[in-house]
């Protein structure tokens, strides 16, 4: 390269227009703008709707007054809180014991146990409810004592019992995963210190183990609570006459077309979720200072008297989960439950049932694929811009905050807010009518994909951000100093190095988009039926067996995608071993 010729010293400052810096700035602005459009504005529209009557006139808090003076509506708050608190207590206890067994004992088959425990993640929660009907419903396996072989027991499934069992199954893997991470992050030296001082086992447990995982416990508690509090699928199937907030929204909007009251119930659903989210964030922020760089990992030593009960516990849980989904699979194959136990694929035909059959199934796959591709690209690029840009601190913090808000948003709230926002014809802004620029999205595949991208945005964003944080922060500067534009380095270095995390995010998007029903049930249109919605509708129509079959198809698809992901990352790992091993 030729040396730059010397020039007069009076070069003006900021002489060079630094195009790249401006491009980055523009992109970050775009990220914030996008999040405002798909999160903030729809939520604002939802809130404002709760202050209007169904004719669109401002009525102040009248809707809220009506809500709190109607016992059938008001009682749902207590009901929702009750089932979520009980679910949380059970889930965190079971999840902690299971996670403890996986991380702190020497039981065999840990990989198998972990895999089985993750199964509920792949299932629509509607299927949890349906499986329960086949177990504990009026004609259930347990209720009828295995088709009359033994005396049966009726647990009174429909209502809180059914909801709590489904939610425990639904939230168990999430709580277990969070607690496993927390339990694994403990410093072995603390245990050595405690041992060296001759502390008995229970004392070490209460003074070292529990304080060490308290943030994980808090997080698992809040996550279980939010999930159980906002879930719609299982209560829809086994809730019976027991009203909870999530099913109330659906009844108000779909059943009575009372959108204003739907908005009010949404606010009631949103408030505790946001509160739990904020508390969790504050607690998590404190944790950062607790992790030490030089911690020694704890390697459990075998102890028979301890390992045996843990093994028994894990076996019971794993068999329960397998049995649970096994019953669902079996029921979907039985000709007429419980009278003709002949096995076959009758219910997988779907002709003559509502819901859309295989068209719905393929639509779901298409939608999940688009959500995975678009969602992964959007979340990873925004995580990159937020993590790897110098300066613009304020804007980056705003983008970060907006990116984690969706974590607190129940799917039903997103769905309802999107109806209000994207279906609006326009707004009067300062007296000028502005037509809705996003209206074209409504009623098509676009809004379905968008709702999924936003619904599962935060976890994906955080996964990407964590992966990016592990990259050397000087990569960007090196490429800048070599005159290579940042987007070249992004594609040549950042993306390849982060590929495992990117694939994980894509799988997460796909699996969740396949299983979710809450957001899309408000947004799908008759020409684009979806598998999860079909499950709900077939179940409504009394076609429980085909609904179950559809649920089994969804779970199988998701497990297949998970296996594909495993194979792909395995291959990738082999290929990248060249540059990761010394």
């Amino acid at each position, binding site marked *: *390269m030729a*040396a*730059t010729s*010397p*020039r007069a*010293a*009076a*070069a*003006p*400052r*900021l*002489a*060079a227009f*630094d195009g*790249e*810096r401006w491009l980055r700035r523009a992109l970050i602005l775009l990220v914030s703008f996008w999040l405002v459009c798909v999160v903030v504005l729809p939520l604002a529209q939802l809130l404002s709707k709760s202050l209007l009557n169904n004719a669109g006139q401002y009525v102040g808090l009248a809707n809220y007054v009506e809500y709190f003076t109607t016992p059938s509506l008001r009682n749902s708050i207590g009901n929702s809180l009750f089932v979520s608190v009980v679910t949380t207590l059970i889930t965190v206890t079971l999840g902690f014991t299971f996670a403890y067994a996986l991380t702190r004992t020497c039981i065999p088959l840990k990989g198998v146990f972990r895999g089985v425990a993750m199964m509920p993640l792949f299932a629509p929660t509607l299927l949890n409810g349906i499986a329960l009907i086949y177990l504990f419903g009026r004609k259930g396996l347990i209720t009828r004592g295995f088709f009359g072989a033994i005396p049966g027991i009726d647990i009174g499934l429909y209502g809180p019992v059914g909801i709590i069992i489904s939610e425990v199954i639904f939230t168990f893997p999430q709580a277990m995963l969070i607690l496993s991470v927390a339990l694994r992050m403990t410093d072995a030296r603390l245990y050595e210190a405690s041992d060296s001082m001759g502390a008995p086992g229970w004392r070490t447990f209460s003074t070292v183990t529990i304080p060490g995982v308290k943030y994980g416990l808090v997080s698992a508690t809040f996550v279980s609570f939010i999930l159980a509090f906002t879930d719609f699928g299982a209560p829809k199937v086994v809730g019976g006459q027991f009203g909870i907030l999530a099913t109330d929204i659906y009844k108000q909007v779909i059943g009575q077309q009372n959108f204003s009251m739907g908005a009010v119930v949404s606010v009631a659903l949103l408030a505790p979720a946001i509160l739990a989210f904020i508390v969790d964030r504050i607690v998590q922020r404190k944790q950062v200072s607790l992790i030490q760089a030089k911690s020694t990992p704890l390697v459990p030593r075998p102890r028979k008297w301890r390992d045996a009960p843990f093994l028994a516990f894990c076996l019971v849980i794993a068999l329960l989960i397998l049995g649970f989904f096994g019953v669902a699979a079996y029921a979907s194959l039985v000709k007429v439950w419980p009278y003709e136990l002949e096995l076959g694929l009758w219910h997988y035909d779907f002709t003559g049932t509502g819901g859309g059959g295989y068209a719905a199934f393929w639509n779901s796959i298409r939608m999940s694929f688009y959500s995975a591709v678009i969602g992964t690209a959007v979340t990873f690029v925004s995580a990159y811009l937020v993590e790897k840009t*110098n300066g613009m601190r304020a804007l980056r913090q705003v983008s970060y905050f907006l990116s984690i808000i969706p974590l607190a948003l129940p799917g039903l709230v997103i769905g309802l807010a999107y109806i209000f926002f994207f279906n609006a014809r326009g707004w009067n802004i300062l007296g000028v009518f502005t037509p809705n620029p996003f209206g074209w999205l409504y009623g098509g595949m676009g809004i379905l994909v968008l709702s999924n991208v936003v619904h599962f945005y935060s976890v994906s964003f955080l996964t990407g951000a964590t992966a990016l944080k592990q990259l*050397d922060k*000087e*990569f960007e*500067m*090196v*490429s*800048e*100093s*070599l*005159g*290579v534009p940042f987007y070249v*380095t992004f594609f*040549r*270095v950042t993306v*390849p*190095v982060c590929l495992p995390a990117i694939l994980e995010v894509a799988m997460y998007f796909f699996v969740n988009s396949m299983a979710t029903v809450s957001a899309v049930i408000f947004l799908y249109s008759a020409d684009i039926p979806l598998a999860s919605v079909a499950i709900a509708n077939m179940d409504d129509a009394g076609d429980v067996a085909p609904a179950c079959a559809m649920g089994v198809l969804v779970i199988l698809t998701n497990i297949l995608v998970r296996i594909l992901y495993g194979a792909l990352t395995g291959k990738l790992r082999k290929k*990248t071993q*060249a*540059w*990761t*091993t*010394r």
Partner: protein
Amino acid sequence: MSEHDDEYLAVCNVTKRFGAFTALRDVSFSAKKGEFLSILGPSGCGKTTMLRVVAGLERQDEGRVLLMGRDVSGLPVSKRHVGIVFQSYALFPNITARANVAYGLKNVMKSGREINERVDELLKLVDLSGMGGKYPGQLSGGQQQRVALARAMALSPNLLLLDEPLSALDAQVRVMLRGEIVALTRRLGLTAIMVTHDQEEALTMADRILIMKDGELAQIGAPSDIYESPASPFVASFIGSMNFLSGVMDWESRTFSSGKLAMRVERDVKPFGAEAVAAIRPEDVLVSANGETGANVFEARVDKVEYRGPVYRLSLRLPAGGGEFRPLLAEMAAEKARRLGFSPASTAKVILPPGRVHLFAAGQGA
């Protein structure tokens, strides 16, 4: 270009703030073409910020940076033609050493053959011929460092900037690479600035050292100047070690006294007030067992004898009258120490050569 050889790089009155914190305060210095400068200072003194301002990775709030007489203050790093070697090397892990070195070349060279030749040349320069096909993870720390160096020099930069380039390496590799980096910059006539917190690194590699403290330039000069004539107690204690004694200076008789302890000072110092701090390096303190007389000879008690391999360090106490003592460290070659055979609680004769005693105004802080 010759007209700018004396001020190839000029940093003029640069100030940089991060919110309320001032990282750099009115720093000025210049470098000649081909000169190797080292910025040295304790952590948080602003040395890395200084390097980043020169690189264009940070923009200063006030002041200017001139390269070859041209104001580059407004130019981003990509337009300043500087090569940077980062502390972590920041080698791209998913591409080979060759591809790392070639990373910036694709923009300026058209043909693949040309790029290949240049990469071969660079790899040879850093003694890594034949290693180009390996990934960074397969190279040793020292080899990674060389790849980073080759990559930084690929575009024939106007200036080579090194941010603690050796701090992540084993002691032996570090010493070897010190010599190689200096030899390389000399051979290519490269002007280089290296940030380090290792004084030995700065003393052995740099033509001139900039000592920084709290965002300000404490002293600039050749290594021997800084060691021999530190401008402040801070510099004196930061580079090497130093004994300090506070007391009063009588400028007429050139006598410094601390309590009853009085000594002559013969160094050429511009007089200031009476309150003063005298300082002497431990290796300048002469210790002997037999009775010597003359200027600045004192009787001292030996408190501790510390073995340090090639040298011994004695902790001594100088009586200052009224039962008071002043601590003093002395260093001597192991051979001499063995011959004299000091032991704790013994006494020794100590000479503080009047020509080796430094003087600072009191209140300058250490």
